[in-house]
């Protein structure tokens, strides 16, 4: 199916916070209480509409366990957006956010949009992390924040779509170089005619434009 843009996402966070369930809820609109441990990375895709444009989201759901971090790291590079998920009923998953964020910032491109998600909001009675704490963490690190429930589907659509909106805005502002696929963005087939080879020669600025070592 034709799309205007394709965005690549990753979902990261501790094991058992509901990453795979969020993906399943978003792509299949269902909740599966028993879920297999993710080893390596699972994949899902869905089409959404922003600003009247069809946008294809390709989502990679990563393994939360430390043992598989070597693989997860391969996916940071080349993702346009990341959903960083914790479980509001498990304080430790919230405490590990800093490590996840550092890992993500170190290995991803600097423009990657990161959405912080407190999942399992349906389990209010077992809540260990206050909503305000999530908000404060997001504010401090410049993330967008949302509480979701993969079980009731509350805010799940919004989480994925708002991340896409944020990326879309960055494209409009010219922050993302859409011709560089390493940014996790692809222009749809019907749009690609405009994107010729433009970086032929950094003229004028002499040798200064040539090097670009960093």
């Amino acid at each position, binding site marked *: 199916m034709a799309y205007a843009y394709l965005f*690549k996402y990753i979902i990261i966070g501790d094991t058992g916070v509901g990453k795979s369930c969020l993906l399943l809820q978003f792509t299949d609109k269902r909740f599966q209480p*028993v879920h*297999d*441990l993710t*080893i*390596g*990375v699972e*994949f899902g895709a869905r089409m959404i509409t922003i600003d009247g444009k069809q946008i294809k989201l*390709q989502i*990679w759901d990563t*393994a939360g*366990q430390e*043992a*598989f971090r*070597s*693989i997860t*790291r*391969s*996916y940071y*590079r*080349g993702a346009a957006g990341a959903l960083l998920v914790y479980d509001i009923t498990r304080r430790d998953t919230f405490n590990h956010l800093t490590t996840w964020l550092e890992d993500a910032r170190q290995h991803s491109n600097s423009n990657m949009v990161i959405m912080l998600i407190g999942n399992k909001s349906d389990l209010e009675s077992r809540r260990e992390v206050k909503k305000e704490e999530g908000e404060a963490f997001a504010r401090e690190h410049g993330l967008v924040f949302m509480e979701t429930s993969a079980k009731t589907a509350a805010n799940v659509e919004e989480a994925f779509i708002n991340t896409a909106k944020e990326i879309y805005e960055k494209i409009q502002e010219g922050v993302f170089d859409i*011709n*560089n*696929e*390493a940014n996790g963005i692809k222009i749809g*087939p019907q749009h*690609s005619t405009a994107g*010729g*080879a*433009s*970086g*032929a*020669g*950094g*003229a*004028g*600025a*002499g*040798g*200064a*434009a*040539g*090097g670009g*070592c*960093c």
Partner: protein
Amino acid sequence: MLSRFSDVLQTAADVLAPPATRLEDFEYHWKMILNFYQNYDENNKLHVEETRIPHHLHQMLQLIVDEEKEQQGGTVGPCMEAIVQRSICLLDALCALAAAERPPGARALALTTGTALLRRTRQPCVNSAHVYRPLQRMLIQCNENPASPTEKEEVELLLTLCGLVRKEPGLANIFTTPFVEDKSTLLSIPEDIQKLIPIRSKIQTPKKNPLFEVELPPNPLRNVSIIRTGKDDCNATSSSSADDNASCKSQKTVYDDNDKFLLIDLLLSYLNSADNQVVLRACEGIMIVSSLPEDDIANLVTSCSPACETIVHKLAAKYRAIPANVDPSDVDHLNITWAYVAQDFGDKSYSKFHGYRDLTSFFSWLDYCDTLMKECHPIIASHLSRTFRQNFLEGAAESGLTDLHHAVLVTAILAKCLKVIDSPDLINEFSNWLVGEGEVSEWPLLLALVNNCLTDNHDLTLETLRFFETIIEKGTEHSIRRVVLARVAARGYCAAPPAADDDERDRLNDLSIGREREYNREAMKQLQHEDHVNEQITDILAHEGLEPGLRPGDDNIHRVINSFLLLLPRAILSDPVGADYEHYIHDAHRRYQYWLDATSTFNWPADYNGVDTTASSTHSYDSRPEADIHLDEAFEPIKLEQKDPKQFSQRLVLRSRDLTSQSSQNEEEFDEGIFFKMIFKLLANMPSQPYQVNLHLTSIISQLALLPHPNLHEYLLNPMLPTAKKTPTLFKTLQEVARRLTMEIPRLRNYKKIIENTRLWLMSEDPSYDENADHNQLVESLIVLEEFCKELAAIAFVKYQHTLHMQRPQCGLKLFE
């Protein structure tokens, strides 16, 4: 009332016929499966999904998951115990189902059920022979048919086992020689199972399976395990079959030639799948196992499996598959991440230009190799990088660099390879391949590259210069020494100073202009221009707090900057105002910081080395005002001044004349080496070379000028450096070019207008300009040179500024006296 009544009824019913226990349920489903197969009609064409088999298997799985939730302290519940004891041989049955593929679809079902059992339970008891043997058998039997329709399920099960091994490394033992049974056992179904499930296996004897090319020993040493786990995990399960517990066997560290690591071997066989998702899974599995911290497993991977060789062989094959007529300029724009390519390849529109898919396939595999090397055990990384050099660089790529028909594309691809790799091992091997090791003075490959720069083929020159740019950007201490520093390390370029105290300006500017200066209006303008440039420099220096007269060094930096900025006479400048110094300073600052970080671990001197580089030579300090500082610090345990390469200084620039005495004894003619010879030759030839070549050439030189090495710094950035007449330097070469341009450009008709237009075009970065035939190479080279001078001035300034910041205030003053 009613509910109370039904409760009573239920209680009564429970007394008469208590509800089935979980184990009874488990046995019930098991019997239903066996019943199905006892009555199975081979002619039945029903798909397995249309039978009750999936339901019963699912229920059995669910019972195991449920019972595990109630188990305390790591014990195993009765259902799992039944499997471990083989009183219910579920896994053997799955293996038989997979082998028979009856009813159709049974194999995929058996594989996914096995995978689900391993992934859904916290303790799948893989240690137990009654669990791992059927799994092994299933994997090997399925693997007999390459490109089978169940590849996905097979590799998924393998990956799951990798995941378990990652969490409990001792489990790797069940995939090594002593535990992998001989071929005939692995390819047959145990007799009791054949009776329980009486269907004929579809698996035939293997035709040619590499897994069995090595004959396994007839009597495997049952009590030897290759992986030592450090901790005793025998008691991890309550399994009574402890003597089969794989991770508890005694140890063995010497490998036989016949030793195999089945897990990796199986994974490797899926790398050739046509399904990218399957390949991706196999890649993930290899990465998971390779990244284990256990030395034993790393040794197994390198010694008992062809993993590294297979991976590099695949890279070489993908390299060879790149069509020879790919446009080299397409190569540089690729940005490939291995993990995402599997998905992208499914997209049929995934082709942007000729050869795109082949290039993508190659570079994504390179990215995988690179990522694997970053993540894996150091033993594997070093083996893999050596294999990479031998089997890819030397075996596949090297000959292409000297093959005139392919050299341009090969150079472009190799330059891109070096540019994208990130693993230190790989960068090291790559660099050593390029520059050579040991004391070989002229490494053939480096010589070949230098010669490629000097051909008449501008495309080859351009691509090779790009390659050199990357070689320097990705430089290791060794490679930078070999390519760049080898000849300047002894300061052989220094010579007796020329006749002293000649007017700086006369020396720097063309003499003919000096003569004309008195007569014409242009000379007035030139003078005004020089004043203007001087003012600008003073402004910039003042802005940075470096006012002339405040420190003697500031006057010197003023002269250095002046030399570069006044190299070309005003009359032919395209931008006499020079408004973008700030931009160059900003850029130089950023890049210099990069180099300081990148070379922070290099053992580079903080101060220039004279002819004597040994610590014993102290005489070189004698003539220096700062000698006292060094001597004081010599008695301290850490000599910051000398150890910190960031602390190099520009003292030489400032005091070059005092220092020449010490190296003037070097009477021999200075040989700048093949690399600098090439650079200076191309530089001198700037007016006759295409714009792009000049752009990359100056970019290389500016990178070199940024390197925080004192000798290289003075050799490139000190216009006042006293040298022998024949010794080529950057500044002398630039003067030569400037002289030629000053002579030739005014001869062009309407040259001012041409200069103005060319500048506008170049600045507009209009791609149509490249195709436009109306180029004036001469004027283009003028503009490159003009901007290059600004850049060099900015670099000199930024490095000077940095030196000042690094020095303590009281010290700083002293050093520049």
